[in-house]
C-alpha cells in the first residue's frame, strides 16, 4: 500500500527525561507546525489590519482638522493602504492557506515547514518595523529620510516573506497530494492558492527590485517617494490588485459546495475560470504609464470580469439546485463576491474612460484606481473573515460564535464598501464631493473597517481559547479532506486516508458509499 503522509520535518523526538520542556513562548516561536504558523499569521494580520485602518482614519481626521482634502499622495494614506494589503488582507489569506491547505490535500505537514515559520516571523517583524516607521513620518513617501528608508525596507521584507509563504503553500499543493488526487481534483481553495502563489511571487519579485533600487540609489525622501509611486504603487492598481481576490474565488466555491452539501458542477470549468482570472491579474508589465494606456491594458482589465461573472453563474446554478444551509461564512463570501464585482465595475469604467484619445467620460482615473484597490482589498478581507468563520472547526478547533462572525463580516462590508464607494463617487464626479463630507466619510468607514478587524481578532481568540476541541459532530457535512479530523472517528479517518481519492470530494464519497471507494492494494 502506498501512503503519502510524511512526518513533519519539524517534528522532534520526545524530550528526554530530566531535560527542561520548552515554554509556551518557545513552543510558539520554534514551531514548524503548519496550523500554529497559520493561526499566528491570522491573528497578526487581523491586529495589523486594525492598526492600518486606524491610521487611515487618523489621516482623514487630520485632514478634517487642517481643512484640506485627504490627499491620495499623502504618506499616511499610501502607507495605510500598503499596510491593509501587506499587513492585513494577504497575510490573512496566506495564514488560512498555511493552516488549511495541507489538510485539504491530506498531508500532515506543509512543504518546507521551517521556511513557512521564517516567512511568518520575517513578516511579523517587518510589519512592526513598518508601523513604527510610519509613526516616525516614514512609511512609504514620508518626509523623514531615515524613517522612509526603514519603511521601504520593511515593506520589501514583507513582500519577500509573503512570497516565501506562498512558495510553501504552492509546493504543498503540487507535491503533497494523496494518491488519486490529481490537480483536477484538488479543492478549490487549494487550486486558487496554486494560481495565486506564482502571481504573488512574480509581482512581489518585481516590486522588491524597486525597493532594492531605492535603497542603493541613496535617494532623498522625495526620491524614495517617487520610487514608490513609479516602481511599487502599480501593484495596488488594476490589473495587479486583482491578485488579492484570487483565493476568494476558491473560498467561495468551496463554501458554496459545503453550504449546499453537493458537488459544484463543471469542476474543470471552475478551475479554468479561476486560472483565467489569475492570468488577467498579472500586471507587472503595467509599471510604466505607457503600459497602462494601451489596448492591452484595457483588454486585461475588462476581460478579468469574464471569469468572475462565469463563476458567479456557476455558483448561482449550484444555489438554485440546492438550498444552502445559511451561515455567516456563506453570507460573507457572497458579500465578498459583491465587493469583487464592485472592483470589476470600477476597473471596466476606467478602461472605458481611457478608450480612444483623451478620456471618454471625463472620469477621474485616480479616484477609480483607488476604488478598485479598496473594493478588492475589502473583498479579500471579508473573504478571509468568511473563510475563518466557516472553517473555524478546522482552523481554530472549535465552532466560531455566529454573532461575532456576523458582526465582523457586516462591519467589514460596511467599512470596506463605504471606503471604496466614496472613491468610486470621487472618480465618477472628478473629486466633486464636499471636502468635509469626504473626510468624515473616509474617517468613519476606515474606523468601521478597523472595528471589523478587531472583531475578527476577537472571534479568533474567543473561539480558540474558549473551546476545547469539540467532539465529532453527527450529521456534519464536510466534503473535503480537511474536515476528516473534525468530523470522522479515528477509524474512519484512517480508512479515508488510505483510500485512493476518486473525486474532488473524498468525504462526500465516503459518506455516500459508507466505505472506502477504492482501496489501494
Amino acid at each position, binding site marked *: 500500500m502506498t501512503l503519502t503522509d*510524511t512526518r513533519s520535518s519539524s517534528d522532534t523526538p520526545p524530550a528526554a527525561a530530566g531535560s527542561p520542556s520548552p515554554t509556551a513562548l518557545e513552543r510558539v516561536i520554534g514551531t514548524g507546525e503548519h496550523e500554529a504558523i497559520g493561526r499566528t499569521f491570522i491573528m497578526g494580520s487581523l491586529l495589523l489590519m486594525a492598526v492600518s485602518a486606524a491610521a487611515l482614519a487618523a489621516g482623514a481626521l487630520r485632514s478634517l482638522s487642517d481643512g484640506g482634502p485627504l490627499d491620495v499622495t499623502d504618506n499616511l494614506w499610501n502607507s495605510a493602504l500598503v499596510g491593509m494589503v501587506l499587513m492585513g488582507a494577504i497575510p490573512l489569506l496566506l495564514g488560512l492557506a498555511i493552516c488549511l491547505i495541507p489538510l485539504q490535500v491530506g498531508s*500532515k505537514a506543509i512543504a518546507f515547514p521551517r521556511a513557512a515559520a521564517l516567512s511568518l516571523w520575517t513578516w511579523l517583524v517587518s510589519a512592526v518595523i513598518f508601523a513604527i516607521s510610519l509613526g516616525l513620518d516614514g512609511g512609504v513617501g514620508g518626509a523623514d529620510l531615515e524613517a522612509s528608508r526603514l519603511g521601504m525596507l520593511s515593506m520589501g521584507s514583507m513582500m519577500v516573506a509573503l512570497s516565501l509563504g506562498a512558495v510553501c503553500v504552492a509546493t504543498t499543493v503540487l507535491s503533497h497530494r494523496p494518491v488519486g488526487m490529481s490537480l483536477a481534483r484538488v479543492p478549490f481553495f487549494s487550486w486558487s492558492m496554486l494560481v495565486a502563489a506564482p502571481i504573488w511571487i512574480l509581482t512581489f519579485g518585481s516590486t522588491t527590485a524597486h525597493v532594492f533600487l531605492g535603497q542603493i540609489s541613496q535617494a532623498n525622501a522625495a526620491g524614495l517617494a517617487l520610487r514608490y509611486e513609479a516602481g511599487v504603487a502599480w501593484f495596488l492598481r488594476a490589473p495587479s490588485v486583482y491578485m488579492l481576490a484570487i483565493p476568494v474565488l476558491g473560498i467561495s466555491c468551496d463554501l458554496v459546495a459545503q453550504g449546499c452539501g453537493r458537488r459544484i458542477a463543471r469542476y474543470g470549468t471552475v478551475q479554468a475560470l479561476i486560472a483565467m482570472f489569475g492570468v488577467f491579474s498579472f500586471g507587472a508589465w503595467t509599471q510604466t504609464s505607457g503600459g497602462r494606456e494601451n489596448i492591452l491594458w484595457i483588454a486585461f482589465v475588462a476581460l478579468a470580469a469574464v471569469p468572475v461573472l462565469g463563476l458567479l453563474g456557476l455558483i448561482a446554478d449550484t444555489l438554485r439546485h440546492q438550498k444552502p444551509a445559511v451561515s455567516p461564512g456563506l453570507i460573507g463570501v457572497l458579500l465578498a463576491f459583491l465587493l469583487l464585482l464592485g472592483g470589476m465595475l470600477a476597473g471596466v469604467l476606467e478602461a472605458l474612460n481611457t478608450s480612444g484619445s483623451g478620456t471618454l467620460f471625463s472620469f477621474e482615473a485616480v479616484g477609480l484606481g483607488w476604488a478598485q484597490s479598496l473594493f478588492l482589498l475589502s473583498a479579500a478581507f471579508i473573504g478571509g473573515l468568511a473563510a475563518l468563520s466557516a472553517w473555524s472547526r478546522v482552523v481554530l478547533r472549535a465552532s466560531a460564535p455566529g454573532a461575532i462572525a456576523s458582526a465582523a463580516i457586516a462591519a467589514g462590508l460596511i467599512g470596506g464598501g463605504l471606503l471604496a464607494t466614496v472613491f468610486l463617487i470621487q472618480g465618477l464626479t472628478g473629486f466633486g464631493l464636499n471636502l468635509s463630507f469626504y473626510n468624515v466619510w473616509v474617517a468613519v468607514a476606515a474606523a468601521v473597517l478597523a472595528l471589523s478587524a478587531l472583531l475578527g481578532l476577537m472571534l479568533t481568540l474567543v473561539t480558540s481559547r474558549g473551546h476545547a476541541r469539540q467532539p465529532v459532530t453527527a450529521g456534519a457535512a464536510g466534503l473535503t479532506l480537511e474536515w476528516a479530523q473534525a468530523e470522522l472517528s479515528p477509524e474512519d479517518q484512517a480508512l479515508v486516508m488510505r483510500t485512493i481519492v476518486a473525486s474532488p470530494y473524498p468525504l462526500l464519497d465516503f459518506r455516500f458509499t459508507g466505505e472506502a471507494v477504492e482501496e489501494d492494494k
Partner: protein
Amino acid sequence: MSDTATLSPPEVDSPPESPQAAVAPTPALPPTMPRRRELIFGTVFVTAGVAMALLTLIGSYLATRDAAGAAWLADNQIALTQPNMQMLTMVMSVVTMQWAVWSICRDDRYHTYLAIGVTMLLGIAFVNQSTFLFKEAGIAITQPEGPLFYAVTLGHLAMVIAGLVFLLLMAFRTLGGQYSSRQPDGIGAAAVFWYAGVALYAVIWFAVYIQK
C-alpha cells in the same frame, strides 16, 4: 501517483486484539524519504521570483539608459573580452551541471562529485571575473549610472553566489547518501536555479554589455 509516493508508517495503528499484542514491541519506523519533486517545485517558485526581480532591474536599466542617450557610461570603458569570457564560462557550467544531474540519475556518484566540483569551479571563476570587470570598468556608485549598473550586475552576482552555496549544500548531502537515482531532487533543484542564473546572465550580457 509516483511523484507523491513516500515511505512512511501508517498514521493510525489498529487496536491491539490481545494483551500479548498490546505489549509486543513496536517495530522500528522505516526512514521517511522526502517527497518527490518537493524541492524542485520550491526551487522553481523561488527562482521565478528572483528572475522577476532581476528582469525588473534590467528593464529599469534599459529604460534609464534609453532616456539618458549618448551620455550613458560616456566616461567609462567596458571592454567586451571580460563579459564574453564570463558568458563562455557560464555556458560551460551548464554542460557540467547537466553532467551532474545525468550522473546522479544513474547512481554514478564519482562523476556526480566531479561534475559538481567543476561546476563550482566555473562559478567561482565567474565571480572572480566579475570582480575584475568591476575594477576595470571603474564605475562609481555615485555617478548616475552607478546604482542601476550595480543593482543589475551585483544582483546577478548574488544569485550566482547563492547558486554556489546551494550546490555546495547539495554536494554535501549527496556525499551523505541522501541523493541517488531514486531521489535525485536536490541536484535537479540546484540545476534549475543554476540554469536560470545562466539564462539571466545571457540577458545581462546582451542588454548591458553588448548593447552598452
